[in-house]
């Protein structure tokens, strides 16, 4: 019986073109569109090294060392005449003279000129401070004062232990979260098939000599497996074909997706079992619920996610899309630690609570009207 129902459930999913498209294929399409759009955004703001000229002088070595250390410049050491010519020809963003004072020459203003000015200002400020200290107190040169002075100390460090930082992946996290939640639509179909007051087909199934809950369990299990596999496929498509950087925690990501699918299927079943209305009403409510969760999880704008975290943090703990998105985020930046396991645990709890709710909603269900 189990196999009979599973086979026909798979046939049903594969032949129901609308459901197949919206639940399984649409997320792939959306992922591809996200990839194309975000890839363009990412490329447009890629920071290239700044072509800067250094006019030869006796103090040039220290300046060149500092600028090279910043790793932001292509430095060209040349005469002042050559520097002027190169600037006029557009080969340089600017050039620096270092006689008595350091001077920076530009032909126009822009982001590269501003960055160059900012770094040189910082250098001038620091050297000027050190000179003043030495003039005021020459002993500092011999007592090791400068060894203890935190001149080049960095106070903020991006804690990216496992992979490179790429902010656009946040959108893909929310997209995966939303695609996972689409699984709830499978459950509505499964509920529809056993609620005798929803369709004649369901009434026919309800009078068969088998407990409708069993049929529901079998179809729901099939939906869960089918949805999980399609989400795994989507993740592999993003990771291996579109080369979206999800870090190197593939196994944990697949576990998170699987748990997310369980939760979404059970939430769908629970909502479908408690909403007293037509199939279309249930579907509408569920789509609205998924969209709201995705919105709050930052699929449209990461600012929304931040706003929710600042003002209504509890929403992040009950929003399944947010939990999936946050779990992926935690894996990417911190690895499988406390934050990841918190998201995973809450998803499991939400899934179990929905299962229990569904069980009670269907328990010995008879209808007052059909």
């Amino acid at each position, binding site marked *: 019986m189990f196999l009979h129902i599973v086979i*026909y459930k798979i046939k*049903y999913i594969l032949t129901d073109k609308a459901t197949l498209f919206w639940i399984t294929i649409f997320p792939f399409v959306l992922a591809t569109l996200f990839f194309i759009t975000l890839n363009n955004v990412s490329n447009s703001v890629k920071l290239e090294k700044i072509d800067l000229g250094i006019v030869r002088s006796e103090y040039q070595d220290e300046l060149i060392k500092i600028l090279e250390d910043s790793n932001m410049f292509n430095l060209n050491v040349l005469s002042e005449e050559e520097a002027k010519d190169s600037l006029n020809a557009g080969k340089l963003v600017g050039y620096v003279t270092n006689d008595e004072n350091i001077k920076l020459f530009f032909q126009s203003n822009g982001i590269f000129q501003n960055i160059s000015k900012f770094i040189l200002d910082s250098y001038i400020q620091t050297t000027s401070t050190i000179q003043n200290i030495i003039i005021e107190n020459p002993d500092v040169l011999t007592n090791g004062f400068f060894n203890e002075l935190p001149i080049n100390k960095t106070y903020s460090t991006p804690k990216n232990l496992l992979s490179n930082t790429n902010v656009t992946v946040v959108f893909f996290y929310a997209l995966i979260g939303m695609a996972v939640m689409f699984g709830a639509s499978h459950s509505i179909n499964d509920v529809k098939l056993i609620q*005798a007051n929803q369709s004649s087909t369901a009434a026919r*199934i309800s*009078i*068969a000599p088998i407990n409708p809950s069993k049929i529901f369990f079998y179809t729901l299990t099939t939906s869960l497996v089918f949805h999980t596999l399609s989400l795994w496929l989507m993740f592999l498509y993003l990771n291996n074909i579109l080369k979206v950087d999800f870090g190197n925690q593939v196994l944990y990501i697949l576990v998170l997706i699987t748990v997310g699918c369980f939760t979404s299927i059970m939430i769908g079943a629970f909502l479908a079992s408690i909403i007293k209305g037509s199939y279309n009403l249930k579907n509408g409510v569920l789509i609205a619920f998924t969209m709201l969760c995705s919105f709050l999880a930052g699929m449209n704008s990461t600012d929304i996610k931040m706003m929710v975290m600042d003002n209504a943090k509890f929403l992040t703990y009950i929003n399944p899309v947010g939990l999936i998105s946050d779990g992926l985020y935690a894996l990417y930046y911190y690895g499988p630690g406390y934050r990841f396991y918190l998201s995973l645990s809450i998803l499991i709890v939400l899934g179990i609570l929905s299962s229990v709710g569904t069980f009670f909603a269907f328990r010995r269900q*008879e209808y*007052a*009207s*059909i």
Partner: protein
Amino acid sequence: MIVEIKNLVKRYDDLIALDHLNLEIKEGEIFGLLGPNGSGKSTAINCILSLLKYDKGEINIFNKPMRPNSYDIKKDIGIVMQNVAVIDGLTVYENIDYFCGLYVTDKEKRKKLIDEAIDFVGLNEFSKMKPKKLSGGLLRRLNIACGIAHKPRLIMMDEPTVAVDPQSRNNILDGIKKLNSEGATIIYTSHYMEEVEQLCTKIAILDNGRVIALGTKEELKSLISTGEIIVVEAYNLTEMHLKDIREFPHLMDISYLNNKLTLRFKSDKSCLVNIINYIESKEIVYGKIYSEQPTLNDVFLQLTGKVLRNNV
């Protein structure tokens, strides 16, 4: 007794859909539940199948109480719904296989049953087609095949011929007789009195959730005083003629409207010859002349004072 219903009461808020309904259906019968829309036929079927909660009463099937979890009873019941109950994405064969598979787990046995069901409803050449491609009549046949493929002892047919063309309707009615001849007991609901008259060995007429008459069609017709009805397309009838006709023995009712003379007689003896003789002796010009026996609609009309259905 295959089905026994005692004092069944079903309410929808203030509306009493079934009002102390009592029925007994014996093995081998084609039992007709006849009544106008809203008389409680489908509600009765849904209560018998435990799809609907009822407020009071008792339902026994195969001499056992029927409950939602009476799977040993359910395995011997088939249902043909009023609305077509199939899965759109599956083919004709797959639909029958899916529903039959809920009753019969053995694959070989099931294949044989499906082939028989497809043969029975004449869908052989459509077995690979999906329901959306089928005409209304073929869809109804698929609906029947899904309900009877597992060879149930008791088949409930809830208005299976609604919106079906005459040819498909005749096929369906022939099929139902065949099912009955193979041993199935059938409960058949309809508001088409001709179908019920043609098919059913026993009939219950329902109105406002109550059985107002029960018996064979002959027994039901004997309940009313109306006998033969003679209709004459007669021209230039005078008051004198009508006065003479009113003197005919056993005449219960007479009407003459738009050159149509309708005569209702009390007895079941034929008065046609007497009428023809009178018309000819008075040299009355006439067209068609025919005699009718009372129908179940007449029975219903006389018992309730209203017609069984308006769109006859």
